[in-house]
């Protein structure tokens, strides 16, 4: 399962927008909301890449003969 280019662009877009939201919230002095927003963005991206990570671990196991 190869990561396609659209997923990479989606993740980049989410990163940019979550970064902007973080900056806006910090600017008005809401660091707590900003941190929560970053965490939510991280969870969304993690949910999107979890299959790729699983695939990566399987490859590593296969390469080093862990099973």
């Amino acid at each position, binding site marked *: 399962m190869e990561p396609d280019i659209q997923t990479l662009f989606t993740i980049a*877009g*989410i990163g940019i*927008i979550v970064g902007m939201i973080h900056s*806006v*919230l910090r600017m*008005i002095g809401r660091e707590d909301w900003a941190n929560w927003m970053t965490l939510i963005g991280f969870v969304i991206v993690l949910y999107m890449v979890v299959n790729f990570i699983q695939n990566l671990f399987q490859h590593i196991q296969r390469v080093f003969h862990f099973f």
Partner: protein
Amino acid sequence: MSLRFIFGFLMLALFSWIGWDVARRYAWRVQLLIALQRALTSLETEIVYAQNGLPDIFKRLAHMEPALLSSFFLSTHRELLEGRRNLADVWYDLLNRPPLILYTDVRERQTLIDLARSLGQYDRLSEQKRIQLARYELEEAYQEAKQNDERYGKMARTMGVLFGLLVMILIW
């Protein structure tokens, strides 16, 4: 593809509109507090110098103020002419239902109701002092509302657009 495109733009428009609406509420609150202070100044002038009766004063204020406050003062005028309830009860009802409840805080409503309780009960000098006290409290609320409008109004607009873009990217 085209359906997702349309849905994405609808989401962007929806979130942007929500952001603008929240920002507009902050701006309207500031406008309302300015108008209320102006109305209290007129009320003070009418009571102390013109010495008119309360129903007449509220009718005149209804003609002077913007739509939101105009209907408030006009309803007060009508209720006072009917004479079934006192001013405090009338204002309690009018302030605790839309549209005024959306733009006023509990403190401002209480200030106005307290003022309504005292109007027509004491001599002119006491009434003038009470109106000035209410205006001072509204001025404090106005400063706070202005600060919130500058800070959170801009934030609401920006956040609306950014959340819209985020949702658009997620459903793309």
